[in-house]
């Protein structure tokens, strides 16, 4: 019973934090420089791992699926399969899991340390709203950067798949590209961009909440960091399921 009440309490705190962030969006100051800086740190800083993840995911997808498709004699649809998988599912999810590991943990650790070292109390004493100054920029940065990185991940992944198809499976690149083009339509792209937007918000809000709810000194900072990664990863995968269901039934079947 206590566990359930605690869980509901956490959700309530999370909801209240979200509310304060949303309310803060419409009240000055907005700290534009802070937002830009977070975009640089969280988004551009993650570009390398996203590029590597995307490229190899696309490659391994082509490698595995081509083998199976060959059994049915439809190896030519490898591009379609790789592109569809990446745009619909793997691009958003893998990008955001990577972000959760690299960025979510960083946010939690940073804010947790600030809380433990009472910098946040000092900030509040100086008349600065720590939520507007620390939380909102991170949330805006991730909500915008996650879809951006996902698009890059999709593109690089498709390229990786093409490289594998042409060099290792000896398919002509034109076959692969023509097949991949068939997979791409507006509904797929819109569906593939809704997901990372939601995931980016989840990573940021969980990271911030974990950091700001740190208890127990420097040990607590470690716990918060771990909890941030675990919770945001699980939420990403769970919400991905619900979003896929919704996107398929609303966008792709209509």
């Amino acid at each position, binding site marked *: 019973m*206590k566990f359930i*009440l*605690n869980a*509901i*309490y*956490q*959700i*309530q*705190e*999370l*909801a*209240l934090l979200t509310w304060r962030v949303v309310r803060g969006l419409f009240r000055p100051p907005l700290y534009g420089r802070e937002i830009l800086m977070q975009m640089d740190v969280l988004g551009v800083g993650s570009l390398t791992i996203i590029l590597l993840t995307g490229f190899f995911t696309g490659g391994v997808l082509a490698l595995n699926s081509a083998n199976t498709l060959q059994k049915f004699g439809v190896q030519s649809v490898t591009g379609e399969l790789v592109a569809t998988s990446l745009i619909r599912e793997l691009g958003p999810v893998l990008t955001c899991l990577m972000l959760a590991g690299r960025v979510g943990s960083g946010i939690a650790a940073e804010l947790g340390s600030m809380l433990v070292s009472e910098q*946040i109390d000092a900030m509040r004493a100086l008349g600065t709203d720590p939520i507007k100054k620390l939380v909102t920029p991170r949330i805006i940065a991730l909500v915008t950067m996650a879809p951006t990185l996902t698009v890059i991940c999709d593109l690089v992944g498709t390229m990786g798949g093409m490289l594998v198809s042409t060099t290792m499976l000896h398919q002509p690149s034109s076959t692969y590209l023509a097949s991949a083009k068939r997979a791409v339509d507006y509904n797929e792209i819109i569906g593939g961009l809704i997901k990372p937007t939601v995931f980016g918000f989840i990573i940021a809000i969980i990271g911030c909440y974990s950091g*700001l*709810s740190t208890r127990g000194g420097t040990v607590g900072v470690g716990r918060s960091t771990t909890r941030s990664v675990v919770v945001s990863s699980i939420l990403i995968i769970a919400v991905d399921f*619900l979003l896929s*269901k*919704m996107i*398929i*039934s*609303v966008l792709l079947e209509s």
Partner: protein
Amino acid sequence: MPQKKELGLKGLRVGLLVVASIVILILVIFAVSGDITLFSRKATVKTYMSNVDGLRNGAEVRLSGKQIGSVRQIRFSDQIPASADAGQNLEIIMEISGILDGRPAIERIRSDSLAVLKGAGVLGDNVIDITPGTTQGEAIADGAVIKSYAQKSVGDIINAAQTAMGNLNTISDDVKSMTGKIRSGEGAIGKFVNEDAFYVNLNRTILQTERLLAEIREGPGTAGRLVSDPTLYNQINDTIGQLRRTVDQINEQILAGRGTIGRLLKDEELYNRANSLVGKLDETSARIERTMAKVERGEGNLGKLLNDEKLYQDARATVENLKAISARLERGEGTAGLLLKDEKLYQNLNEVSAEVTKLLYDFRQNPRKYLSIRVSIF
């Protein structure tokens, strides 16, 4: 900022609200995609089959190919069948949406619907496709049993195809031997194909026909003239024209009342004459009638002849007298009687004639005996 609070339901109202809204959101997402049906009834339909061919629980149930539900349960019926081909001992319970596009599903699935076991594709799972009910069937109740029909599986089709292929093989062997014979010139078709006698004959016939046609077209014979010379046509044409004119003239004459037929049709004189003749005939017959009436009344000679008793009596007396005379003649009474009966007169006459004959004979022999009339003046 999170602050340590005593956990109680009162302090968690916002948390509960958020949890409730997330749950509702999730339910709505599933309801929109049709995986869970909120606030709607389910209907159940059963059918029996002898073989479900790997149909699974949860397999699609379609109506005219549109998914309307799923198979809830497949189970053997309680009784063990009497023979292997008694069949239909598997009961399939299907769960279908209670409402299909605004109408109860039971209105669409009727007693004449058939549950057909089908493969969803060559490699796909099996599904049950229900044919739509018509007004010829009756409405069914929830949980009713409909009839089933097992469509041929891929295996059955392949088996049938093997038989067909065997037949095709036989046919192709036959065709092969036939074409072989044709090629080697056996039989009528073989000769037709291989020997050029037919061709030569045909060619000759065609050439002759061509020549004949040319002769007809250009030649001086009857057929040629028939084709090329317009004289016959012109004459026939003229004749028909004359005939038409004649008919026109006759028509005109008739219309104008000239000529015999015209007068017959137009002139009233003949009619009048005939009319008067009939009138006279009528008069004559009236007179005859009157005469006959007079005769009946006994007037005039004819009338008396027919009607007067006295004449009859006189005639009768005369006949009786004649009868008496003939009786006396019979008996030979009187002169006439003796003449008839007595032979003496006949004999005397006979003797006389004999004597006369002798006399005449003698007269001829010796005429001088009788003609010596001596005239002596001196």
